[in-house]
């Protein structure tokens, strides 16, 4: 608690707001003692004078010093604001906790009344109450207090609702603690902090509102004066004597801001603070000799791909592979292994502050590392299709499905609105969406999850894709729908020899769809092997552990499911040696000391493990 208040004072905004607020409060105490005599001294000899050595902000229509009057008015202005805020907070607390005290039915009426009152702006409520309570300081106090009460009632309700659901309140209730005691002892202490913050901000707004009412002549009445009154009196003479209107105006703004800023700084100190993230430039990788030359039928060739974020963290550390025409390649690994970032980096969808570098990144023979011209944009837009994990959030909720598909054709193929929509309907039909014409006019939320994912694939088919990058396309779907989506991908691949890069944490899914599998761990490929014979060929202990963790028909159901011991590697603290070593049963001194390179055998099967030759045969 103390450290959090301390953190408020450590930020530059917090310090200046606190200093400003302290100055305002100090002035409220001292100013009347220092300047009272001067402020009330009527000098008919110098009426409405401008700035002079004696009166450096001039004098008003009775020859009184304006600077002194503004200073003296600090006390009344601040006191009135604080009292009005207290009235508002208290009334808000009473209204806001009323549902707890009165029970559900009466509580609902109070809540409904608060909801209606909240819809009206504070000034309007203040005017309404000012009519009832009458013109004058007391009336204005009550008016403003009651005007801010609904807002506080709403806030209290929200906070109470949050706290009332917590265990200790339920426990207190079960223990037979009375309602009043429950509120005072258990609930109020837990909502005090946000209430304080909002009350501080409200005090600033109240100060401004009070100035408004006094300015209108509805607040403080002469001979008493606050800033609003001084401002109202000074406005009439703004042509001859602007200082009389401007000085109290400035005072109101400064004092109001002091409260506001301090409240904001408190809120920020209490809530989490966003750390400044330094932005780094895109770094061109140093040219390094390329080890492998991709064949002429390569759709995608990646070499030495790295993705890093300021921190610095490098979640993808030198990934390389190729995907050939019509081939299905899977990437598997635990969450955090860098699979998704690899996919996004290939598709050039990593945004600042993320940084991508690669020794080679070619799609259909075009270098993706350089340039971002319209030609490249069209190539990627029509030939590279993306399917994302969550079809619920991956469509724009405010646009009709058909239009979201059609815009691809409009932008990249120059089709008109109508032909583009016709193509969209055709593509929806191609991914087996029934009543495609009607569905195209619907919004995403009217589609089921599986249909959305098929529509997403259909969107990729608006062009003539050579590669579909599918990032966990079935994870968010239920099992029967998963099958449909996978079968659809397979059919597209077979019909048009479209290559597929399937990213999944589910090794069973990958095995079903893909020809080849890349196993990723801690941002690197640790093994590349054919999908069909994984059980026999897997040599990396991590791959074998993944395979062992998949239950099949022969799994003994009485034994607990196999799990990989230990935790996934922390990308911010990677060891010098093999990242899997801490979890590996075969790890020895060499593994801890040196990171094993990814080595290919004659068949193209690659593995990065010092002990790859130790593990042959079926996994346990």
């Amino acid at each position, binding site marked *: 608690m103390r450290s959090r208040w301390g953190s408020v004072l450590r930020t530059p905004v917090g310090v200046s707001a606190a200093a400003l607020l302290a100055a305002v409060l100090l002035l409220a105490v001292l100013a009347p003692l220092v300047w009272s005599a001067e402020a009330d001294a009527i000098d008919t000899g110098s009426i409405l004078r401008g700035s002079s050595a004696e009166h450096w902000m001039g004098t008003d229509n009775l020859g009184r010093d304006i600077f002194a009057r503004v200073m003296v008015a600090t006390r009344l202005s601040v006191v009135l604001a604080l009292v009005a805020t207290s009235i508002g907070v208290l009334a808000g607390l009473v209204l806001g906790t009323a549902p707890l005290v009165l029970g559900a039915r009466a509580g609902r009426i109070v809540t409904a009344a608060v909801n209606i009152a909240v819809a009206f702006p504070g*000034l309007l409520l203040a*005017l*309404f109450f000012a009519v*009832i309570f009458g013109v004058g300081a007391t009336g204005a106090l009550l008016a403003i207090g009651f005007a801010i009460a609904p807002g506080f009632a709403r806030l209290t309700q929200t906070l109470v609702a949050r706290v009332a659901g917590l265990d200790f309140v339920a426990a207190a209730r079960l223990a037979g603690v009375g309602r009043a005691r429950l509120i005072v002892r258990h609930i109020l202490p837990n909502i005090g902090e946000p209430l304080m913050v909002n009350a501080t901000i409200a005090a600033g707004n109240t100060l401004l509102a009070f100035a408004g009412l006094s300015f209108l002549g*509805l607040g403080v009445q002469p001979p008493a004066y606050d800033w609003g009154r001084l401002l109202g009196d000074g406005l009439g003479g703004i042509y001859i004597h*602007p200082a009389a209107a401007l000085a109290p*105006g400035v005072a109101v703004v400064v004092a109001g801001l002091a409260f506001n800023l301090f409240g904001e700084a408190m809120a920020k100190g209490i809530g989490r603070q966003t750390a400044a993230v330094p932005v780094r430039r895109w770094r061109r990788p140093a040219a390094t000799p390329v080890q492998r030359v991709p064949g002429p039928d390569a759709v995608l060739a990646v070499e030495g791909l790295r993705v890093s974020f300021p921190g610095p963290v490098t979640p993808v550390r030198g990934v390389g592979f190729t995907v050939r025409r019509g081939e299905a390649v899977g990437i598997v690994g635990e969450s955090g292994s860098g699979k998704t970032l690899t996919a996004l980096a290939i598709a050039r969808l990593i945004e600042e502050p993320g940084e991508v570098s690669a020794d080679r990144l070619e799609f259909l023979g075009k270098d993706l590392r350089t340039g971002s011209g319209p030609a490249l*944009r069209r190539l990627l*837009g029509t030939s590279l299709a993306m399917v994302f994990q969550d079809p619920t959030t*991956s469509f724009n909720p405010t646009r009709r499905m058909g239009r979201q598909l059609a815009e691809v054709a409009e932008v990249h193929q120059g089709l008109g609105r109508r032909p583009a929509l016709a193509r969209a309907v055709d593509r929806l039909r191609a991914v087996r969406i029934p009543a495609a014409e009607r569905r195209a006019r619907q919004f995403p939320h009217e589609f089921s999850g599986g249909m959305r994912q098929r529509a997403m694939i259909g969107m990729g088919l608006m062009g003539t894709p050579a590669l579909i990058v599918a990032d966990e396309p079935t994870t968010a779907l239920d099992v029967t729908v998963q099958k449909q989506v996978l079968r659809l991908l397979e059919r597209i691949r077979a019909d048009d020899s479209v290559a597929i890069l399937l990213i999944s944490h589910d090794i069973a899914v990958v095995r079903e769809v893909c020809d080849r599998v890349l196993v990723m761990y801690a941002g690197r490929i640790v093994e590349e092997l054919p999908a069909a014979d994984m059980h026999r060929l897997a040599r990396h202990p991590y791959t074998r552990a993944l395979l062992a963790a998949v239950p099949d028909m022969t799994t003994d159901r009485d034994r607990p499911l196999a799990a990989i011991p230990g935790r996934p590697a922390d990308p911010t603290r990677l060891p010098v040696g093999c990242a899997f070593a801490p979890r590996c049963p075969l790890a020895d001194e060499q593994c801890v000391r040196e990171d094993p390179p990814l080595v290919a055998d004659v068949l193209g099967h690659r593995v990065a493990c010092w002990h790859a030759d130790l593990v042959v045969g079926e996994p346990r």
Partner: protein
Amino acid sequence: MASPTAAMAPTLERFADNVWLRFGLRRLGRLLVSVWVLLTAAFLMIHLIPGDPVRAALGIAAPPELVAARREALGLNDPLWLQYVHYLRDLFTGDLGVSTITGLPVAQVIGDRLPATVELALGGFGLAVAIAVPLGLGMAVLTRGGRRRQAELAFTSSSVLLAAVPEFLVAVGLVYVFSVALGWAPVAGRSSPDSYILPIVALAVGPAAALARIVRVETLSVLQADFIRTARAKRLPDRLVYARHALPNALTATITIGGLLLSGLVAGTVLVENVFAWPGLGSTIVQSILAKDYPVVQAVVLVYGLGVLVVNLAVDVTLALLDPRSTIRES
């Protein structure tokens, strides 16, 4: 041929299932309740005034016979429920009573003053939106992902400052700079077209700053959304990604919060009108409160309250049009 009843049934079913219809009915119900509360509050306002409002309005020196006659004329001697019934009946027939000071029908006073206030409010609203949306969107695009920290700091601090300064102080400052010091605009009144500039700007500055902040924050969070990634994966040009995919989604959240600001703008006209001696409802209500001209006060409170309710309704309908999902959501 299908029988007409068989053809009717699905139509009726669809009619009942229509989310728009249900949304409309629910929203209408809420509006009616709010209007009723407003009417009742305005009625009770007069009766909650401590002491005798007629005595207060006429002054202590007024003869008791005059007070009694005025009370009788205003129907204040009837039982409360009867007064309420009369009040509602009069409202529906358009009879808002007579000003106790000028003797003019209140409906006429409102009719004379309302257009000036509506001009001001609409102008202020239009200007605020015209500034806030492009500014907020632009700043979000420029400062996304922690880019341009300095620009972000400058924008947030200046918008906090501008949003915190109340409109009547902005008005005073504008008058000083543009009317007194530079002499570019008239200091007060509603005459030439250029007399509109300062009041509208004074009214718009605060809401524009606050709204721009909201637009920026909302746009930033929308830019993180999956569907923006989808739009980028479709390789749409940036302007389409921002204008077509980010903006409508940022606006739905913006309008919800911005609606409160806009109804605040309706109330803000009261203060701005008093600075510029604008012949609208805002100056009328203040003069009437000071003069204890309760029939006028009551009517102006009603008009302002209805204005706020209309703004809120417009906000909800716009939201529903922009984001079809909000028609299903329970409010």
